[in-house]
């Protein structure tokens, strides 16, 4: 029996022994088809899913490659039914192909009449198909490319999209990297991410917060050499993108436009917010046309895990354009990973957080759960409250305010973010800590000023609501205190930790405190929230509030 680093389970999970000498090679071998699910300190677990296998097929790997990798690195015999299932699942990809026919335009073609008959039999698919050219080919309505792909994926027959992409309007974009002293260089994993994306045509790149996803986007733009539309979560993020592009590429101020609530500029590179695109007036989305009314050669979806439904719908019509999704947490709380696969594209690159940390590109972090006791009156109120009220009562316990003050006092001279969800709680905290507060109604200019003061060290403590969950670049923040969250949201937890992940100048370890009310639903939600980070290898220490000096 081989002594490999992998243990392949019958339930389609793969365990990888991190300390094994062949672990790195094995990780590489399975990365193309297995999804990293958990990455704790000793054994990482991957899952083999149809999406993952189709991702691999889309990247040019066949079933033999997958089976070989499993047999080669597996410590124990691999369940034979699993190997058969892998072969059968992978064989489904590409049995249907979307192609460009010189006469009929977009067509759906199969090498098996029965498969085409099977999928055409469903009403929804039939509505998207036109006449049959022959028993193996059906015409597809030009606008139905994305919708059809999504439906075929659901039916278990993912179509290979060979219909190609439009070129888009050419626009030269060059990176400013170089090897001379003082110049920046593309990191190896960033380079591989871009190469994988470009080879695949469209798809998603998953990298930890602070690992330089924006640079991956910039490199993809340079590879495309066309006009680009970048979709981001909010205006602050749009401006950070702009600043980063100015720094990392040959683009000038005049070539980059902002399309937000405040400004509506359309330039060769346009950065638009999800919010403005999904603004609805009289039942229509007036700004969504921005997506399709211009000849973009590349669309970049920042924080693709947050992509709102209208953008998904619109993306279905944009299948002729190259699409790049960027995220740190491809965990959709709404379970729409399949739509990301069908409409944005397969996952092209994924790197475990701890691996990037080991390479020194993101800061090491110490996650601490601080258990706080509710006072007797609070506990009585909690015990008699309705279910709907309980979480708020537990999450906003005044006892947490005291602990937060103690934690701030315990980190003199450090840049501290205090994060929460409930505004009353944040107001009180800001007052007690004598710190500025950024929340939803804080003007963009005011936000930017406060963030800049924080970056400059003029402010050492900043209280923020969930507006600061994403896409916020605060390199010197080294301590975060999370007082409340959005119930059990795993991605919020990860994104909040992500605010601390930029490597510190002095190599300091970041501290991420979560205050949790003991013996309440707050503790249950905290456990759920921590799952993603725990799975990425972040071990939470649990301490008692009384132990904080």
């Amino acid at each position, binding site marked *: 029996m081989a002594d490999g680093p992998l*243990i392949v389970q019958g339930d389609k999970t793969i365990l990888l022994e991190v300390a094994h000498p062949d672990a790195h090679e094995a990780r590489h071998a399975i990365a193309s088809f297995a999804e990293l699910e958990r990455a704790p300190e000793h054994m990482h677990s991957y899952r083999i899913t149809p999406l993952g296998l189709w991702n691999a097929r889309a990247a040019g790997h066949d079933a033999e490659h997958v089976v070989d990798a499993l047999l080669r690195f597996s410590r124990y015999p691999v369940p034979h039914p699993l190997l058969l299932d892998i072969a059968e699942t992978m064989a489904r990809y590409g049995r249907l192909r979307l192609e460009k026919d010189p006469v009929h335009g977009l067509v759906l073609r199969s090498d098996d009449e029965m498969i085409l008959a099977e999928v055409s039999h469903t009403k929804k698919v039939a509505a998207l198909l036109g006449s049959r050219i022959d028993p193996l080919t059906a015409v597809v309505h030009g606008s139905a490319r994305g919708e059809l792909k999504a439906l075929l994926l659901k039916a278990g027959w993912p179509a290979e999209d060979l219909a190609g992409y439009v070129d888009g309007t050419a626009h030269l974009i060059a990176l400013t990297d170089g090897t001379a002293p003082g110049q920046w260089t593309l990191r190896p994993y960033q380079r591989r991410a871009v190469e994988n994306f470009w080879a695949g045509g469209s798809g998603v790149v998953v990298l930890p917060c602070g690992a330089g996803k924006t640079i991956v986007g910039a490199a993809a733009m340079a590879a495309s050499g066309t006009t680009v539309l970048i979709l981001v979560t909010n205006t602050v993020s749009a401006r950070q993108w702009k600043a980063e592009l100015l720094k990392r590429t040959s683009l000038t101020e005049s070539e980059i436009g902002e399309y937000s609530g405040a400004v509506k500029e359309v330039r060769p590179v346009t950065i638009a917010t999800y919010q403005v695109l999904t603004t609805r007036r009289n039942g229509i989305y007036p700004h969504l046309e921005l997506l399709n009314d211009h000849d973009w050669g590349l669309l970049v979806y920042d924080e693709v895990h947050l992509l709102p439904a209208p953008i998904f719908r619109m993306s279905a019509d944009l299948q002729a354009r190259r699409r790049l999704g960027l995220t740190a947490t491809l965990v959709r709380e709404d379970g729409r990973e399949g739509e990301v696969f069908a409409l944005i594209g397969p996952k092209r690159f994924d790197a475990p957080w701890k691996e990037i940390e080991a390479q020194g590109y993101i800061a090491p972090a110490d996650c601490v759960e601080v258990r706080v006791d509710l006072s007797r009156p609070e506990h009585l109120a909690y015990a008699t409250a309705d279910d709907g009220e309980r979480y708020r009562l537990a999450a906003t316990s005044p006892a947490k305010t005291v602990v937060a003050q103690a934690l701030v006092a315990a980190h003199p001279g450090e840049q501290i973010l205090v994060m929460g969800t409930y505004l009353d709680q944040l107001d009180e905290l800001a007052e007690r800590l004598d710190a500025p507060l950024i929340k939803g109604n804080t003007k963009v200019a005011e936000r930017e000023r406060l963030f800049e003061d924080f970056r400059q060290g003029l402010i050492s403590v900043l209280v923020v609501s969930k507006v600061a969950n994403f896409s916020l670049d605060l390199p010197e923040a080294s301590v975060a205190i999370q007082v409340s969250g959005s119930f059990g949201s795993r991605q919020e937890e990860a994104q909040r930790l992500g605010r601390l992940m930029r490597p510190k100048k002095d190599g300091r370890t970041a501290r991420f405190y979560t205050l949790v009310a003991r013996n309440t639903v707050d503790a249950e939600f905290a456990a759920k929230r921590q799952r993603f980070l725990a799975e990425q290898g972040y071990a939470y220490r649990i301490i008692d509030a009384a132990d904080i000096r």
Partner: protein
Amino acid sequence: MGTLAAFAADLANRPEPALRKLLLLRPDALNPPVPTFVALAARLSTASCISRALDALNAPALQHLGTGPWNAQTSPNSSLMPELYARGLLLLQTDNQTDDAGTGHYMHAPYVLPLALVPNPQMPSSTLPPEPVVRAVTEAVCKNAAGSAADALLRSVDTLADLAAHTPLQALRSGQFAARTVRLVAQNLETDELHTHFLLDLCATAGLLTFQTSTRDWRWAAPWWSELERQEQWVGLIRSWLSSPATAGEPALTSRARLLSVVAGRPAWAPVAVTSSATTSVSPSGITSAGALSLNSVVESYLWNHPRTATAEVAALPELLTHLEWLGLTGAGACSCAGDAAARNDWLQAASAVAQLLPAAIDRFVIQGDLTAIAPGPLLPHIAAQLRCVSVVEGRGPAGIFRFSELSLTAAMGAGMSAETILNFLKRYSSTTVPPSLEFLIAEAARAQRTLAPTPTQCLFAPQQPAPPHWVGDAPWPGSGVVLLEEVEAQLALLRAAGKNTAGKNEAGQGEVGPALVLEGVRRAVACGLKIRVHAVNNVGVTEHVTAVPVSFSGGLLLTRLADTGAPRRFSIHRIQSVDVLEGEELRG
């Protein structure tokens, strides 16, 4: 000399190696042991014993048997005759009359044989084995498939053991597993109901699950199961499966065992024997390079090798092939090394072969910050049991994943474990340090436990166990067709001690010889029209002595006409103690 006496004389004159071979090929003679050669001849001449011997014959052998008598030197299929003779299916005629022709020994069949040779229209006519269609399977793929199947099988049985030890499995009045039970087990095993049925039947066959008639449920009856080595567990399951009939009324060598011999490409009628202390010398490489037979080839080969039973069993072959795969006897359709050894009834070799494929039991696990313990292989049973006590099992595969939660720890404490006991256990068997988060969780659970103050109950550890059986290389599994050489030697010693008494006079009416002599006498009298004197017990237990003319013998009834009055008289064969054939008093008219 009667046929039985002639057969006994033939047996008595056989050299010892030939007798040894006969006993190996016809193990019916060993259980219970027979005291004399006459008794041996009687045992081997019974219809059921001959039927079993014929079941093992292939098409050419059966065809040949249907064409006797034969001259041992001039018969066209003379190569088959020594084998048939060795099996006691042909008798050597040695008296002067038959040998006068000077053409060598003549052979004929025991008298029951023609009755057993029912014409079979589906009997393959070819004397050559069918040409198989083989799909290439590499040894690595075969090993992987067989190994993973054997491992999955044992894990499933472990899960079933855990379930059934705590929850009796409800059954129907007939003893069949209730549909709801099957669904419950299927959910626990994370498999489909077909596979679940197979596993339940397997465990019942192996005696691991026993039916309680009073409560109408099946219960785990093998608390010693977890103490066995994994390869021994596998051998036990395989031996019980191979020796139990797939359908009711199957002969001792079951269709499962016959199918395995076909898939393994082993001659169907090769003698098999093992000793309890030594293995036979067989190449460990097995025959995996032979590849996987197509279903059609299996069916054809099965028909050719076992024409007497195949007709009724062919329909079940696809399902049985699936079962061979689930058991790890085949891997990706090709016979595995362990399967090959099993086909030869070499259980030490089978155990050794499967042990090379099964993950070895380990005594260490790692604990991670996400509150899971991972055992990168099957844990030793006592460690696994204790770990299950404090956590919840996740996933399905060779590695064990155990998740700790406040609930699981509280439950363990409720079952009598203290925080200190749990921590000590984890520290003792974890190859990594216990993360602070888990220590904190244990402290929290202890705090909650103190608040609730439950009454400690006994922890669900493995109960006291009786001694486990020894399945590898020990006594043959009932009905498996396996013969221990020791048994054969004991039988031969018994026969030697009895001497070459082949007349059977002293044994008339005793043991198995009496009924055999009665049957032989009755059949001869009916065939030759001879008067007989019947010694029979009437319905009040008094022995009668009647002289009669036999008319017919069928269905266990002997119809006669009384010699003096001509009145009809019927005798149930079981009431007849003995029969004297009155030679020279042929029925006239």
